[in-house]
C-alpha cells in the first residue's frame, strides 16, 4: 500500500445510520427506521484497517451524523494524482449502481462507475466488495433484530474505485440517497 490520505467527511455527513441498543429510535439508515447496531461497529473516531487500508470510523454517538447519504455532494481533496480510493459504505434497501465524477483543476469531469451492495448480504456481495464489517443483525426502533439464524447478514463493505491518471481536486457524488459512505481513503499514485 502506497501513501494514503484519509478524507475527513465529517462536514458532509447528512445521515445518522447507527443507533445504540439503549435508544434504537436514534437514526434512520434506510428511510424506514432501520439502523446499524452501534455495539457491532468499531469505536467512534477510531482508526480501523481493512485489507491494509486505513479508515477513520465515524462518531456513533446518539444524534451524531455518521455517514453521507449521497445527494450530489462534492468532496474536495488535495490536488494530486491518485491511484484509487476506497470507500467504507453500503446501499440501504437494495444494491445500487450509479456514477460519480472525479474533477480536475480545470473543471473537467471524468465519470466513474460507483457500485455498492446492499447492507443486507444474502449470498454474495453483488459488486465484489470486501465484507469489512459484519453485524449480528440490525436495529428497528422496537428491537435488535438478530439475523444470525437466517441466511442473511448485515454490514458495511469496502469498495475500491480505480482512478484515471489525471490530477484531481474533487469527487462529485451522484444524487442517489440509498447509497451511503461512512469513510473514504485515497491512495496516492507512485511518484
Amino acid at each position, binding site marked *: 500500500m502506497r501513501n494514503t490520505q484519509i478524507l475527513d467527511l465529517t462536514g458532509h455527513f447528512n445521515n445518522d445510520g447507527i443507533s445504540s441498543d439503549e435508544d434504537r429510535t436514534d437514526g434512520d439508515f434506510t428511510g424506514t427506521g432501520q439502523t446499524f447496531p452501534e455495539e457491532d461497529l468499531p469505536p467512534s473516531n477510531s482508526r480501523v484497517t481493512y485489507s491494509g487500508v486505513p479508515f477513520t470510523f465515524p462518531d456513533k454517538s446518539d444524534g451524531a451524523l455518521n455517514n453521507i447519504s449521497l445527494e450530489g455532494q462534492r468532496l474536495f481533496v488535495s490536488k494530486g494524482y491518485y491511484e484509487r480510493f476506497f470507500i467504507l459504505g453500503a446501499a440501504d*434497501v437494495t444494491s445500487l449502481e450509479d456514477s460519480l465524477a472525479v474533477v480536475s483543476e480545470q473543471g473537467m469531469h471524468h465519470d466513474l462507475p460507483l457500485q455498492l451492495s446492499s447492507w443486507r448480504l444474502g449470498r454474495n456481495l453483488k459488486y465484489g466488495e470486501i465484507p469489512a464489517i459484519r453485524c449480528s443483525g440490525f436495529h428497528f426502533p422496537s428491537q435488535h433484530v438478530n439475523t444470525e439464524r437466517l*441466511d442473511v447478514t448485515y454490514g458495511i463493505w469496502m469498495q475500491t474505485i480505480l482512478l484515471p491518471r489525471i490530477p484531481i481536486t474533487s469527487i462529485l457524488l451522484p444524487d442517489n440517497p440509498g447509497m451511503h459512505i461512512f469513510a473514504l481513503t485515497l491512495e496516492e499514485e507512485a511518484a
Partner: protein
Amino acid sequence: MPFSDCEYYPCELVALDSFLTYSGYDTPLLIHKEWHFRYTRLDNRPHIEFNRTSLEERLKQSGIRIARRHHPDVEFAWSRVSQILNAGHPVAILADTLILEQHYYPGRGHHSGHYIILAGIEDGGESVCVIDPSWIVRFKGKMPISSLKSAWQSQAISGCNWVETLLPAAPGIIGSEDVCDVITENCEFMGKFASDGIGIAGLYHLLTEIELLQSMDQETASEFLGHLYESVKTGVAERDGHGRYLNLVSKQTDTSELLRLGEHFKDLTNQWIIFRNLCLRGQKRAQKDMASRLQKRLARILEMENEAFAMMTELLSRRQGILNIANQKMIGFNWWLTIPGLGSNLVDVSIAIHDRASEGLGRVPSGVFLC
C-alpha cells in the same frame, strides 16, 4: 426449495418464484413478458401500472392456474392444506409477521401479511417445514404447527389465506413466434396510446406532473410522493423481471441483441429503484429541490425506456426474416426455440433441448394440486 434471488420483489412474487423454480419452470418466462407503463392521477393520488394483466391471467396463459383461498376456520383450512402437503407438494400461505417474529422473522414490531412456503409436515404431525425465500429473510426451518396456525389465522391479516396452484401435466409450448409477438405487443402498448397516459407518453406525462410538487405544501407533497413510492414498487419487480425474461430468451437463442436488451432492463431497474428512493426521502423530509431531483432521475429513466423502445423496434424490423426460417415449436417454457439467422446453432440447441426436456419434465409435479 431454492431461495429466491429476486431482490426488491413483493413477497408474493418471491414465494411464487421459489415455487415455480422448484417445479422446474423459469418464472420470468411465465410472468414477466410484459413491458408496460400507465400513469393516472386521481386527485392527489398518482398511480402507475407496470403490467396490463393480472398475475392470475399471466399464469393462466401459460397453463398454470392459481387459486387464492380463504377460510375463517383454521382447522378447516389446515385440513385442506395438510392434504396438499401430504401429497408431497408445497403450499404458499399468508402469515402474520408479528407472530413469525417469535420464531425467525426479522421483525418490524407490527402486524402485516407475509407469504411463506410450507414444504411438509414433520415430527409426527407436530411441526411444519417452513421456507421463507424472501430476500430479506432466507430462512429454512421448522415451526410448531400450533404457532403456524396462530400466525396464519391472525385477525390482523383477515384469517387463513393460502394459494393453491395447478400445474399442467406437461409444460406448455413456446416458439420463436411468441418471442416476436411478445415484443410486438409490448412496443404497441409503449408507443401507440399516446393520449392515455400509456407508455412513453405516459412517462412524459408523469415527468410534467412532478412539476406540481413545487406548488404543493409539505403535507400534500409528502402524500403525493408516498403514493408514488408505493406505486413504483411493482414497477421495480416488473422491469427487473422483464430483463430476466429477455436474458433467458437470449441465452436460449444466443441472440446478442436480446442479451443487450436484458442488461438494459437491469440498468433500468436500478434507475427505478433510485427514483423510488428519492420519493421516500422526499416523503420523509421537506426538500426544496426534490421536484428537480425527481425530474432529473425520471428524465434519465425516460431516456432509457426510449432506448429500449428503439432497440425493440429495430429487432422487430427483422421479424419477418426470423419467422420465415423458424416455424418450429418446442416443449417447455424453460427452454427456448432458437432464432436462426441471429447467430445460434440449431443442432447444438436441439440436443440441449432434448436432454433438458427429459430432466425438466421429471421435476414437474403432475398436476395433483387441489383446485
